[in-house]
C-alpha cells in the first residue's frame, strides 16, 4: 500500500468509525444522566 492509501484509510475510517463510536458514547452518557435525573 502506498502512503497515500494509508493516509486515506486512516482519514476515512477514523472519521466514520471514530465518529460513530464517539456519538454512541455521548448518547449513552446523556441517556444515563437523564435516567439518573
Amino acid at each position, binding site marked *: *500500500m*502506498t502512503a*497515500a*492509501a*494509508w493516509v*486515506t*484509510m486512516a*482519514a*476515512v*475510517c477514523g*472519521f*466514520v*468509525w471514530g*465518529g*460513530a463510536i464517539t*456519538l*454512541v458514547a*455521548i*448518547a449513552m452518557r*446523556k441517556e444515563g444522566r*437523564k435516567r439518573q435525573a
Partner: protein
Amino acid sequence: MLLAMLSMAVGTGNIWRFPRIAATQGGGTFLLPWAIFLVAWSVPLLICEFAMGKATRKNPIGAFADMIGPRFAWMGAWVALCSTLIMFYYGVVTGWCVRYFTAAVTGELPGAAPGALWESYSGSWWAVLTLVVSLAAALWVVARGVRGIEQSVIVMMPVLIGLVIVLAIRAVTLPGAERGLAFLFTPDLSGLGNSRVWLEALTQNAWDTGAGWGLALTYATYMRAREDTTINGFILGFGNNSVSLLAGIMVLCTVFSIRPEAAGEIVGAGNTGLTFIWVPQLFAAIPGGRLFMAMFFLALFFAALTSLISMIELAARILIDRGMSRGRALVVIAGVALVFGLPSALSTTVLDNQDTVWGIGLMLSGLFFGFAVLKYGVDRFRHEHVNSEGSDFTIGRWWSVAMGLVVLEALVLLVWWFSQSLSAEGLAASVNPFRSFGLGTIVVQWAILLALCLGMNRWLGRPRPAVAPEEAA
C-alpha cells in the same frame, strides 16, 4: 427506536451496493466525496426528517402539507412513492437473499460453474416465490405494529452487525488482503473531476443512510417527545456508513485475496454479479467457506428484511393516516407490492432499470426536503423543531447552511449529470425512453410520477387529523 431506525438505514445498500460502487468508481477517489456527502447530505437531511416526523406525527404527505401548506403535498407524495417504488423491487432482492442463504446452508452453493444457480434462478418463477416469502415475512412483522418492528430488530440488528464484523475480520486476515485495502483506499485526485463519481457518492449516501426516503420521518412519528433529534441523526448517518465501510473491506479484501487476477472482472460484474455470482465462488475457496458464505447471506437477508419492513411501514402509515386499519392497509400493500414486484422478479433488466430510475430519484426527494425547510424558514425550523423540547444538543447555524447546500448540491449535480449524459450518449440516444439505462427512461418515469403526484395534489392536501401512534401501532 434508534435500533429500529438503524435497521431501516442498514440494508443491502451497505453490503450489496457499496462495495460494488466504491470499487467501480475509483476506490479511494470515491470515498472522499462519499465521506463529504455524509455530513453535507445525509446527516442534515436525517435531522430534518426526524424533526418533521416528530413535529407533525404524520407520513411524508401529511408532514409536507402541515409544514409548508397543502399546495406542496405532492412533494411528500413524491418522497413516499419513490420509496414505495423502490420497495417493489427491494422485495425481489430480499427474496434473492433468502434463496442464496438456503443454498449456502444446504451446500447447493457454489455449484459447478460460477453463476450456475444465478442463471437458473434469476428471472424465474422461483424468484417470484422468494419475493412472496420475503413480503410475507416483512408484512408479518409490520402487522404487529411498531412494537413488533422494535422486537424484531432487537434480534436482527446485533446479529447483522456481529456477522459483518466477523466476516470483515476474516477477510482482512486472508493472505494478500492488503491488495483489496490498497484498491479501496488509493485515491486518484484526477477522478474527482468526473461528475459520475460525485453523483454516485451522493446517491450511495442516499441509498446507504435512507436520507430523503421519508423512512426516518415515518419512524420519527413514534419518537418520544424527550428523544433528541440531532444526536439520532448523527448516529444514524455515521453508524450506517460504518457498516458500509466494513462491508467494502470485507468484500474487496476477499476478492483481491482469492482471485487477484480476475479482480477487475469481478468488481465490474454489475449490480448482481459481484454478490450473487462471485461471492459464493470466493467463499468456497477459503477454509470454512460454507459457514462464512451462510453468514454472509444471512447478514444480507437481515439487512434487506429490516429495510423492507421500514418501507412497508411507510406505505402502511400513509394508508393508516387516510383512515384505513393497519390490517386492511397491509392487505392492500401485499397485493400491490406483488403485482408491481413481479416484473422485477421476472427480469433483472427491469430491476436494474428501476434501481437506476428511483435511486437517482432520491436526489429529488432530498431536494424537496431541502425546499420544504427553506420555504418554512430554515432558522425558524431549526429553533422550533430541531432545538425543541427534549433536545440534548442545540444545533447551530451550520445546519441551516447545510440544508441550503442540500438544495444546491441536488440542483448542481442533476444539471451536471444531465449535461454529461447528453454529451456522452448523444441527443438521439438520450431522449429514447426505451433504453434501459439512458436519460430518456429516467426522465419519462419521473415525469409520470410527478404528473400523478401533482394531479392528486388537491385530494392529498386535504387536512386530516394525525393518527395517534398507539392507534397506528
